[in-house]
């Protein structure tokens, strides 16, 4: 151990930190830095040469791979695929990724190998200093700040400072106000026209959600579920279409009327065991789609809320709190299913101003 190391381990004034850590805290004395052990490459020139060759080879492979990347980019047709073992991948994509990835990796591994095997590996010691400023610095800063404050006259003319604070605070108003147009304000009227209503109304036909073919009551088998939309959704496009789909989507199910409970108030909302519910989950609005035919349960794939379609869409499991809104339906003269009205309550997830007193609850009739 050199003198220098010994002084370092004792904390010889290079650092101002040792006072905080009394020596008596340590039951064992610091033996100081251990001797440096040479690596094989330090003592064996052949090993050092070998390491040098390794590093240089890794670096030398990089240009080869870089050219390989360019070849893959320009010469490999985009339509070729690898289908081998676990790889099912576009050939060009595969070659671009492997050449560039390997090239980068070789640069990195080469550099690290260089550092580990060939660069000087004597550890060095640096001294720490407390993060706290020196007393002098602190005093200087405080004194000068005080002086500067005096010079600014703010201490004598306090109104300067107060009015400046007031002025800056007032600029918060324009800052906040300029964001008032982030979106339309959800006033009672606008809520009624947007999130509280759908395009369903009396007489709108229920159609298949992909083909838009109207759904005929007689075509539905018991146990069958059809994803539907209102017929008039075809008139919409773009944003309006997406917004309508986020609210108007429905599921139409036919169940054996003897196996389901239909409350008295909803006897005329169904057609011989054909019931129609909102497809939008009352939890956070996912379209519910997993149908258990035997139990009449409908499960939301997002958070697993489960609704009993055989019992007015009540929640039987999961984080959703409200029953699925039911759409009153009947048949028109040609035997197609049509809505008797729009939804009687807002569909979709809860929001603060939602009046949830009219929702169907356990025990309602």
């Amino acid at each position, binding site marked *: 151990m*050199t003198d220098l190391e010994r002084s*370092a381990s004792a904390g010889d004034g290079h650092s101002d*930190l*040792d006072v*905080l*850590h009394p020596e008596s*805290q340590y039951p*064992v*004395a610091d*033996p*100081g830095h*251990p001797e*440096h*052990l040479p690596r094989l490459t330090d003592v064996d020139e052949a090993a050092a040469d070998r390491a040098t060759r390794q590093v240089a080879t890794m670096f030398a492979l990089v240009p080869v791979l870089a050219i390989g990347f360019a070849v893959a*980019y320009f010469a490999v047709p985009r339509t070729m695929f690898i289908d081998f073992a676990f790889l099912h*991948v576009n050939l060009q994509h595969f070659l671009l*990724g492997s050449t560039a*990835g390997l090239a980068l*990796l*070789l*640069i*990195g591994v080469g*550099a690290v190998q*260089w*550092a*580990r095997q060939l*660069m000087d590996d*004597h*550890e*060095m010691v*640096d001294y*720490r200093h407390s993060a706290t400023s020196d007393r002098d610095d602190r005093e200087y800063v405080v004194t000068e700040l005080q002086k500067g404050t005096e010079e600014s006259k703010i201490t004598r003319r306090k109104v300067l400072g107060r009015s400046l604070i007031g002025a800056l605070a007032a600029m918060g108003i324009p800052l906040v106000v300029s*964001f008032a147009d982030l*979106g339309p304000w*959800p006033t009672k009227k606008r809520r009624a026209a*947007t999130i509280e209503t759908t395009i369903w109304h009396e007489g709108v036909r229920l159609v298949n959600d992909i083909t838009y073919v109207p759904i005929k009551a007689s075509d539905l088998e018991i146990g069958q579920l059809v994803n539907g939309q209102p017929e008039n959704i075809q008139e919409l496009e*773009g*944003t309006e279409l*997406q*917004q309508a789909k986020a609210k108007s*989507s429905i599921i139409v199910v036919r169940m054996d009327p003897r196996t389901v409970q239909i409350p008295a108030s909803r006897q005329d909302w169904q057609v011989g065991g054909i019931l129609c519910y909102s497809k939008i989950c009352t*939890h*956070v*609005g*996912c379209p519910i*789609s*997993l149908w258990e035919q035997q139990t009449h349960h409908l499960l939301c*794939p*997002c*958070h*697993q809320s489960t609704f009993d379609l055989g019992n007015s869409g009540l929640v039987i499991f*999961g*984080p*959703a*709190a409200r029953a699925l809104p039911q759409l009153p339906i009947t048949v028109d003269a040609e035997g197609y299913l049509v809505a008797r009205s729009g939804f009687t309550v807002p569909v979709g*997830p809860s*929001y*603060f101003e939602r*009046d*949830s007193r009219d929702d169907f609850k356990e025990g309602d009739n």
Partner: protein
Amino acid sequence: MARPAATVSDAPAVQAATPKQELGPVFKLAAKPADYIDQRVGVAKLSRPFIRKVFPDHWSFLLGEVALYSFVVLLLTGVFLTIWYKPSMAEVEYDGTYQLLRGLTMSQSYESSLQLSFDIRGGLLVRQIHHWSAMLFLAAMLAHMLRVFFTGAFRKPRELNYLLGVGLILTGLIEGFAGYSLPDDLLSGTGLRFVDGLIRAIPLIGTWAEFFVFGGEFPGDIIVARLYMVHILLLPAIILGLIAAHLALVVYLKHTQFAGPGRNETNVVGYPIFPVYMAKAGGFFFIVFGVLVLMGGLMQINPIWTYGPYNPAQVTAGSQPDWYMGFVEGAIRIMPNWESHIGGTTWSWNVAIPGLGVMGLFFGLMAAYPFLEAWVTKDKAEHHILERPRNNPTRTGFGVAAMTAYGMLWIGGGNDLVATQFHVSLNAVTYILRVAVFVAPVLAFMITKRICIGLQRSDEERLLHGAETGIIERDPSGAYSERHAPISQGEAWTLTQHRQYAALMPAESDPDLTDGQLQRENLRRRASRFYFIDTLRKPTRAELEAAQHHGDGHDGHGEIESGHNGNGHNGNGDGRSGNADGHHSIEAGEKTSGAVPSQ
């Protein structure tokens, strides 16, 4: 591992002793431009303190580096993606290369994402590198945070840098989510739908927040453009700023180091930035980058073409967010369906509590912890030597408890997949998790704490009785014992370098203190007992000497027949009487602020 021989401070002496070297060819070439720049910027002056700055070496210090480098990769690949991506929700008909989606109407953002994936050479590769980097960025940040937590690196003077780190994880989460929403495929739209429900559920202002974020009713026509701004401008700028401050503080405070011979609270032992870390850290950047590119090339991630464009009427079973949002997703899934209907209002606790509350709780506790522990210990000293997790069993227990709670929520985020893959009832999984999320962390805490104390005992064993040699000796009376070899002074120093705190007895009433102050002080003392009463006290110098003597006298044997009683160092005895055996300490402490850590 290399051993230190030189120190920074002897560099001038070396220089004075060696004759002035002839400059190499590169230096000669660079001399004029360097001189030009130095005359204008003073680079020599600026770089002087940093060029040979010492950094300590440990594998766990690489975790933060991985996070940093994956962020750099995110910036590089992100710029490439913006060249083709169109942040627009305008409806277009797809007419690109991918046959299965031809003729479908979709948003322009989805169309351009498909174009990037199929028609731009290397586009899919870069998109996948970008997504993998995002995953790695968050994973590395969390792992780095755990390393910092479990080694106590957040202690003074690094509390503020820890807070910057918490801020980085939070912004990273939101940044990741914003990016996930941009392709506007079915999965990202479903994620947005979830966020819409979440925002709506905020009590009082939910509907307003929803209309302001989405520019009206969900999904509207502007959210993708807004998220694009957030994703490529706002949050990256914040993250860059936080990273800059984070690294500046690392440089200013110098990196922490693990205990070891020659290492103490006043120094830092390691290698210089130039050339060693230039090569190692620089090389490591290329390694991280290379691995990410290979992942992008060989491992598929987010195949956006699979599920088609976003359609609010469709969803796929097994929909999942990216892994880092899994704990929020899990909280949402296992939450009971509590909702209050008061008058004409709806209070959606089933969404607000898990969605906002769990995130708030998680990040709140994470940010508050250093200050909580500092309040308990009243330790005002700077700490630069990292603690081993075992030497602070209560903190380590808290950390593992938090990880366990996170893990339970994470399992909850895939409760449907757990049910289908393991053929168990979905409902049972959910009900069990509702309990487990509270019980499992408590169990984890207790088990972890016991394991830590056990490990402390094994350290103590090595200190007092030496290392097991594997040599069994039989003495004249026929008893067997194992010979122990004393450990090196270096190891003994390493094992005893950590700081210890006293478990404090309640304070007596004191005329100097008001009742409120006394109550707070006693609360703190109770906390200190909770923290430190079980912690093994490290042996004192006298005990170590006595043990050595004991070892010499008995020539290393006698451990089996007598070792564990009578010598006062059994440390264990019967666990319950632990306080009396001399290895646990309760101290009266001082009346008020002066509670000095016990020795």
